[in-house]
């Protein structure tokens, strides 16, 4: 595999004159598909005697059944509760004794299971991953236990937190009209409480098949040996019928949507704004990603400079395309460019919005300068490389890309593709998509200090 020469000679002098671009980095990476449909990606990194694994299944919040909100995530927890071969506790014990750590993550379009450890633990971990792809310990006791754990997770991350993640839960809920995109992914407690062990079993059979999964292994490994091991442990798992994929299309939005919520824990107000984005991997997706970062990425961003520094109507601005549950390249259905703005109590929502609109309008009218664009693209390329630094995060990126597109090339190409976005594309994208008829806003204000005041606005 080719690495740009300047990597080996400290390229400060060489590249000082380069604008964004012209620096390729691509570690040796390859891919194979087993006869049962499991796709395997291997990427080498010999800088430390460790590895990272990510196995992504093509199941996320969007596909969880109606009446079972929060189920994809609850199910993720069940994957750690053991199998008939490997009782509860074994998986964690083996990985920790092997000097590693593991976790799981549920998002709109995938559920991933990640592990990282010294290479000595590769064999037992692959075996355990294969074991839980064959069957699980479908016990009521485990379900009851993890239901409690998940409900505590919702309490700690949502209900007991100021703002309760409203920019990630309530905003899409208001911006989209169909169940897959609009429902509360953490789950209503009544739905979580209603989940039965039969649901767990059915979900597993539908979605947790080898042909609905991509396994990526990154680290200090020999690819030929890894393919052999994967073959040995996974090849015997039968494929199953491909799961149904209901339509996730949304009817076009035609009017601005606005709402106010109260928050009994927040002490200062916040405004969330969401614009519907073009479909994934469409001709304007890169311009969308760049625009999102130009507006939101760091202190040099347009919105930070306009709202926090110049007009001084905000305390903080966060956001971007597919924010906060992923980066602007990892989604596979309708998503938003979201902004989350915390503002001082003595400022009005209208003042915040006026400053926000002025920043958007400027971009829609004049676009960014080439210089502004180069800076943002350099930052995005740096962030994308950052994701590839460590085996476990590189495994995630590779696994998601293959799950969505059948190829991992975008992981290494996107940094350079970004350099092709032009100021005009950003201007045109902004003028077309960042318009009031395409947006949803929720203003979240502290509840009056009375115990029974208003409704909580909490996202349960």
């Amino acid at each position, binding site marked *: 595999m080719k*690495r740009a020469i*300047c*990597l*080996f000679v*400290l390229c*400060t002098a*060489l*590249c*000082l004159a380069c604008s964004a671009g012209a*620096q390729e980095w691509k570690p040796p990476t390859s891919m194979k598909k087993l006869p049962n449909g499991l796709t395997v990606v291997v990427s080498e990194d010999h*800088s*430390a005697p460790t590895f990272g694994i990510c196995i992504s299944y093509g199941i996320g919040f969007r596909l969880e059944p109606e009446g079972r909100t929060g189920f994809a995530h609850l199910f*993720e*927890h069940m994957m*750690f509760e053991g199998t008939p*071969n*490997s*009782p509860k*506790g*074994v*998986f*964690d*014990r*083996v990985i*920790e*004794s*092997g*000097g*590693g750590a593991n*976790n799981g993550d549920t998002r709109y379009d995938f559920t991933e299971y990640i592990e*990282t450890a010294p290479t*000595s*633990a590769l*064999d*037992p971990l692959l*075996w355990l991953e294969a*074991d839980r792809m064959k069957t699980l310990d479908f016990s009521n006791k485990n379900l009851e236990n993890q239901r409690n754990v998940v409900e*505590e*997770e919702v*309490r*700690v991350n949502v209900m007991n*937190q*100021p703002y309760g993640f409203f920019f990630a839960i309530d905003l899409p809920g208001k911006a989209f009209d169909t169940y897959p995109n609009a429902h509360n992914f953490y789950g209503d407690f009544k739905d979580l409480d209603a989940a039965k062990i039969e649901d767990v079993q059915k979900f597993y059979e539908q979605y947790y098949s080898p042909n609905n999964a991509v396994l990526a292994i990154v680290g200090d490994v020999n690819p030929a040996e890894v393919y052999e091991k994967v073959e040995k442990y996974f090849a015997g798992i039968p494929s199953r019928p491909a799961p149904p994929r209901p339509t996730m299309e949304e009817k076009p939005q035609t009017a601005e949507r606005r709402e106010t919520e109260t928050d009994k824990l*927040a*002490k*200062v107000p916040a405004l969330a704004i969401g614009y519907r984005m073009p479909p994934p991997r469409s001709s304007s997706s890169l311009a969308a990603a760049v625009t999102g970062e130009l507006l939101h990425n*760091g*202190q040099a961003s347009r919105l*930070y400079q306009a709202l926090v520094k110049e007009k001084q109507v905000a305390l*903080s601005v966060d956001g971007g395309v597919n924010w906060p549950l992923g980066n602007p390249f990892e989604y596979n259905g309708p998503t938003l460019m979201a902004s989350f703005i*915390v503002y*001082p109590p003595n400022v009005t929502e209208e003042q915040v919005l006026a400053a926000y609109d002025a920043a958007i309008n400027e971009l829609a009218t004049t676009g960014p300068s080439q210089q502004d664009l180069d800076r943002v693209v*350099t930052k995005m*390329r*740096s962030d994308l*490389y950052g994701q590839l*630094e*460590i085996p*476990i995060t590189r495994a995630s990126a590779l696994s998601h890309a293959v799950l969505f597109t059948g190829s991992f090339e975008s992981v290494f190409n996107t940094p350079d593709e970004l350099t092709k976005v032009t100021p005009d594309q950003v201007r045109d994208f902004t003028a077309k998509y960042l318009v009031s008829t395409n947006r949803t806003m929720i203003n979240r204000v502290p509840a009056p200090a009375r*115990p029974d005041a208003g409704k909580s606005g909490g996202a349960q």
Partner: protein
Amino acid sequence: MRFVKIIAIVALCASCALAQKPAPLPKDLPPYGPEKPVEAPPVKIAKLDNGLTVWLVSEPGFPKVSCTVAIRGGYAADPGDRPGISELLSNTIDQGTKLRNARKIAEEFQGAGGDLSASAGRDEIQVSTTILASKVEPAIAVLADILQNASFPDDEVSLAKKNLADSLQQREADPSFLASRAVASVLFGRSPYHVIAPTQESIAASTPADLRKIYAQRFRPDQTVFIAVGDFRNEKMFELVKTNFGSWKAPAESPVADTARINPEPAHALFLVERPGSVQTTIELAAAGPLRSAPDYESAMVANAIYGGTFGSRLVLNIREDKGYTYSPYAELNTYRAAGDFVTRADVRNEVTGATYNEMSYELNRMVTSSPTADELTQAKRFLVGIEAIRLQSRSAVAEGLSDLWVKGLPPEEIGIYGKKIAATTSDDVDAAAKKYFPASRAAIVAVGEGKVVREALAPFGIPIQPAP
């Protein structure tokens, strides 16, 4: 996600074994393969004539570089009438220099592919960035400018004060912040270490002149380390450091005084922070812990991994996996230059507040009264060694790890010694550390939640209740 803290990879971790009756391993499970030695990266140590310490780790290949600069003097060095001003200082250090305004600084870092992050700790202020290797030259030039020429413009300071005041108000809604602040007071009382954030009063009283004065006192080459890790050649990087920092001069006045050793002896009492409307109680058990340089630091780390520092630990298996009280229990040792602490923490639904306290005490005391099983010990040691290897994969984590050692007065080689000391820890070492640090009676109990709920839940234990200091 199973445990929110893991998000940043394995910086921390939580994962599992059945402490009392571990399930047998599956008969077909393949064994671990041969272990490969984990080598800590070699650190090139140098010093400029002006006293600036330079630690460099050259890791060619991946095209990024992490730089971290640590400066002695943090919250513990803040003037008594300006507690927490270090946070305002770290918020404003990049808001203007003699050569650049705030926007220009932000844009130059962005153009190098990085962000500047500046933060205050008890002992230090730390400034760091991770940039593309091809942009290291312009990035270090801005970094050097900020460290030597920050000007704290009046308008930027006044905006930063306003925003910090509002964000402090916002943080006060966060149970985790309330708990940490109460723990700091309970453990460190009136010593300089009780400060972990500013107060509304100190923010209001702070002026640009205060910041300039503190900056002049603390930001000096002989009290600073410059650390770079990544894709560069050491000679070239050293030249770059010399060019950018060589003319920096230390003032004649003596630097910030060192903090005297602090040994917390908190009352075994319940310190209640009332948070009306809370649907959970945040419980922390907080006691003194070892210094990072203490001979039993590694033994205590192993004991903690067995007790509550991993998914497979006794506490997590008990209150999460068995009882389902909580999503995010953990226990950790924190160290500072002049003190160490040991905290257990969980956010639990109101109804199980008392039961959770009971189990935490039980598991702490069980560490004192019973030795770990051979499996527990092996698992904890392998876990800690492996996690260290995984941590060393990341350039920014290596830079931060080195900075942490420097702040605590330890040499960079310690980064490689830690794993060896962990691996050499015996069952007796763990027992000794457990006896010294783990008795539940050593710990103060901090609870953030609905007052009535907490009081009623803990009443049966007969612990004196005090309002948080």
